[in-house]
């Protein structure tokens, strides 16, 4: 078993507006997987399906080798889950909440729970209903970690927390990963946070996976080029909308042009994926008459925005719905 999570062709309709549309997602064991997507793209719906809370209309979900939802129970005992919203009883104290939670998890580690309680400076007799947002966030993470999970599933674990608490939460997650080699599946729209800790990235938009690849490839492969003398009509679209002429040449390039913009003069800015360093020297041969003036690295957030807008532009020009790579 090399994948902690494996989702294939997952379809789930939630009302008329929103749906997961044939979602494929693979989280390799031992990875820290950043599940990125704008608000409303379907991250929480995916996670709820994964945890067996929403039965799929179509497709399959495997969680730690168990088919979801039919066989989800034995898997859940090995998963630490931090939901998007507080799911605890406000009238219980922190200590009572921990004891209550422990009863459901055979792997509960009381010593680890106490250690985290001290590390997070949580008072055992404080009522859950009286906790600050930051304290509640820490308590939810404590409950997920003290289960000693093989897989941590975190739904926006730092959303709405102040920077200090966010650091504590992320440090605790990293510390656990370093000690346990657990797999982490972490959803967020806070791209910069993910950039630090993740080694896999999945980018979701409108219920579909736009891109899923190792962080290093993501970082290395998406670039912004400055090109001079590319004679093709510069449209907003990529090869799909560029029409005849040099557009045909661009379509045969060994990398994919996601977006083109005209700059001042005859310079154009291209955003490409599947770029390799050796293409720099070969550029003039690939596209005669043009010069590559600069290759600029994009950070995760820029890449994220470019990939999303490219996917959306394609969604408008194609009807077969064949998206993503």
């Amino acid at each position, binding site marked *: 078993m090399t994948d902690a999570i494996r989702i294939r062709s997952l379809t789930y309709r939630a009302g008329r507006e929103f749906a997961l549309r044939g979602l494929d997602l693979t989280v390799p064991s031992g990875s*820290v997987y950043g599940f990125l997507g704008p608000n409303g793209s379907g991250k929480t719906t995916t996670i709820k399906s994964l945890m067996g809370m929403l039965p799929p209309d179509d497709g399959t979900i495997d969680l730690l080798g168990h088919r979801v939802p039919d066989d989800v129970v034995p898997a859940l005992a090995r998963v630490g889950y931090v939901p998007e919203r507080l799911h605890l009883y406000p009238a219980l104290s922190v200590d009572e909440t921990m004891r209550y939670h422990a009863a459901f998890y055979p792997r509960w580690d009381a010593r680890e729970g106490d250690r985290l309680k001290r590390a997070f400076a949580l008072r055992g007799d404080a009522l859950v209903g009286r906790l600050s947002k930051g304290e509640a966030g820490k308590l939810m993470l404590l409950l997920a970690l003290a289960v000693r999970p093989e897989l941590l599933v975190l739904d926006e674990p730092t959303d709405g927390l102040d920077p200090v608490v966010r*650091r504590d939460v*992320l*440090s*605790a997650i*990293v*510390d656990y*990963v*370093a*000690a346990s080699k657990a797999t982490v599946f972490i959803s967020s729209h806070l791209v*910069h*946070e993910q*950039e*630090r*800790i*993740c*080694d896999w990235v999945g980018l979701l938009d409108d219920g579909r996976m736009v891109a899923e690849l190792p962080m*290093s490839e993501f*970082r290395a492969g998406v670039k912004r080029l400055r090109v001079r003398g590319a004679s093709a009509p510069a449209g907003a679209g990529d090869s799909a909308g560029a029409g005849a002429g040099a557009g045909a040449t661009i379509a045969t390039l060994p990398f994919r042009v996601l977006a083109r913009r005209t700059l001042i003069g005859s310079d154009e800015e291209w955003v490409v994926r599947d770029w390799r360093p050796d293409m720099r020297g070969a550029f003039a041969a690939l596209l005669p008459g043009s010069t590559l003036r*600069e290759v*600029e*690295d994009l*950070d*995760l*957030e820029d890449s994220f925005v470019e990939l999303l807008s490219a996917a959306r532009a394609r969604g408008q020009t194609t009807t077969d719905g064949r998206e993503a790579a």
Partner: protein
Amino acid sequence: MYYYTDTLSDGGMFDRIDPRSPTPLYAQIAGRLRVAVAAGELRAGDALPSVRALASQLRINPATVAQAYRELEQDGTVEMRQGAGTFVSCVPTERKRRDRAAEARRLVQEMLAAGTRLGIAADELSRALHDAMQETRK
């Protein structure tokens, strides 16, 4: 087991680790440590923080820290002693000089790239550098 985490972080050595930089994080960490050794900030025998402690402190993937340490071990900057931790090796003076020169080159390349983006030529940058050095000397 927390080694010199505090010393290292108080020194601000990793303050400017930047996940958005085109240089991979592991190379940034390895680079900082290599420069710290070259500049004498870290000395032979000093212990580095454990992978777990440094990863947790910087909130980055432990594999990234481990990769940085492996790179430093391979080029002889540190040695990993089984069960004891990672320690700064005795790096020859000549190599320290080379490492400092490499760091200086890297800084200059960054500056040149920034200049290119803004349309400022290398000789203008060079003049500005020269002027700035004059001013600091005064």
